[in-house]
């Protein structure tokens, strides 16, 4: 394979991985910007969505029905998570809600182990009969193409939503000044539920793409992506939605090209390099690329 072809292949690979990270990170950032809650259970919504898709598909539904229903279930699961786990704690210290999110992780992941068993299951949806094709001797996998196109479409729609719609502007207003949002008459619960719903839909979708990429699912599958999304959010600036997207892609590219450039012996340490990157960023620019200088307390 020519070096150019290899480069393009890795480029697409990075773009695809970065897209998934961006999708997961947006949800994390949306909720954080409004509630100052780092919801580590966000990754488990990917797991819930993926299991839902697989079960609906196994029951005989067509693939697109399973996907739509599974992503919707993930969105609803996010709403339930907010209502049951986080709303009763509204107004408590950030440490409390952070620890609660870990409790939700333990609950959901062990619940999934009880329900589905601890083993991996093959995830065959979006499993194309010819998974790759080649252009100018560059081997391109279809799932990467699907991932990138789908994500870019969603990012565009999200940008329009946040920029143009009343709910989008209200989300930014709440992130800006909570008291003033109350005073102008913004219904805070609606904004919070919308943020959870949208973020969880994206998590469901990211779960689909992640599982299709891996070809398998398991109850703890949400852990690595949410930690990666956390890193991406830190890179981009926690709470900033454009920052979440940038952070997702920076992380995707950093991971893929570290692996591509490093000698094969080091490839097993891929995640270690990611966390070294995190520590490095926290040291030199703790507010991230687009982050505000200081984070004030709220709610």
């Amino acid at each position: 394979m020519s070096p150019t072809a290899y480069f393009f292949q890795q480029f697409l690979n990075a773009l695809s991985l970065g897209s998934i990270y961006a999708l997961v990170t947006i949800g994390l950032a949306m909720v954080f910007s409004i509630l100052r809650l780092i919801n580590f259970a966000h990754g488990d919504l990917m797991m819930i969505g993926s299991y839902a898709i697989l079960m609906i598909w196994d029951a005989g539904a067509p693939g697109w029905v399973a996907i739509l229903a599974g992503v919707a279930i993930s969105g609803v699961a996010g709403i339930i998570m907010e209502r049951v786990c986080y709303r009763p704690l509204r107004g408590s210290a950030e440490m409390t809600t952070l620890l609660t999110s870990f409790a939700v992780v333990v609950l959901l992941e062990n619940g999934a182990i009880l329900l589905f068993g601890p083993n991996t299951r093959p995830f065959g949806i979006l499993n194309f009969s010819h998974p790759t094709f080649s252009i100018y001797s560059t081997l391109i996998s279809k799932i990467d193409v699907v991932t990138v196109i789908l994500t870019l479409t969603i990012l565009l729609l999200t940008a329009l939503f946040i920029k143009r719609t009343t709910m989008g502007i209200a989300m930014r207003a709440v992130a800006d000044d909570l008291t003033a949002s109350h005073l102008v008459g913004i219904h805070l619960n609606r904004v919070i539920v919308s943020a959870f719903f949208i973020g969880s839909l994206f998590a469901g979708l990211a779960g689909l793409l992640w599982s299709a990429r891996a070809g398998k699912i398991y109850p703890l599958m949400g852990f690595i992506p949410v930690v990666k999304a956390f890193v991406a959010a830190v890179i981009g600036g926690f709470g900033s939605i454009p920052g979440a997207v940038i952070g997702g892609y920076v992380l995707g590219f950093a991971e893929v090209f570290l692996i591509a450039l490093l000698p094969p012996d080091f490839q097993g340490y891929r995640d270690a390099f990611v966390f070294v990157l995190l520590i490095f960023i926290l040291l030199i620019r703790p507010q991230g690329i687009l982050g505000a200088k200081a984070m004030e307390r709220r709610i």
Partner: protein
Amino acid sequence: MPIWGTGKMLQVTGLEVFYGNIQALHGVSFRVAAGETVTIIGSNGAGKSTTLMAIAGLLKPRKGQIKYCGRQVEKLSAYQTVRLGISLCPEGRRIFASLSVHENLTMGAVQRRDRKAVRADIDWVLSLFPDLKSRLEQSGGTLSGGQQQMLAIGRALMSRPKLLILDEPSLGLAPVLVNQIFNVIAALKNENTTVLLVEQNARRALEIADRGYVIETGRITLEGPSAALKNNERVKNAYLGG
């Protein structure tokens, strides 16, 4: 000239508000009639802002009643009081810094569904504050203090309130801007908007208001027509600089 006591818009009775165990209001009572401009004057920490926040639904009183247009509103949240026509322009402006001027005004009308009328009201607000006209796409945080205050008042007006509550609108502004703000309040008064005004600048407040109340350590200690308060010795010494 409003007739006091008729068309009672707001009636606050025996309001008690606590911050934790600290009592901020010890039974505050006052009223505002429809079309009136009423001011509450008092020093820092006397309970002015606390009173306003309780009316707007940001704080829940432990005791007492707030009656607005014939209904009890002391248990309502802010988004509900806004729906009923109460709009508080808070101390310190609190505009949305990362939102554009236009978006700030849009958020002031967040509960309204009459899009056409909202657009017309944006024009109306811009006619009150022409300085904002050329800055519609600028983000709120880049405005000067005076412009931010104008935007905050404009945003409060965007919900088309029946009762406009202004908390320290002239705080920290240059005299020219203070004049501009008070001119707008006078214009609103002429349009028969009911205004409840809290001000450090007691002289200006009493000039524009029909009636006034003096609040001291969480209690109303004096009340009366503005002209009478202006000539009251205690008010003169404490708030009008002798």
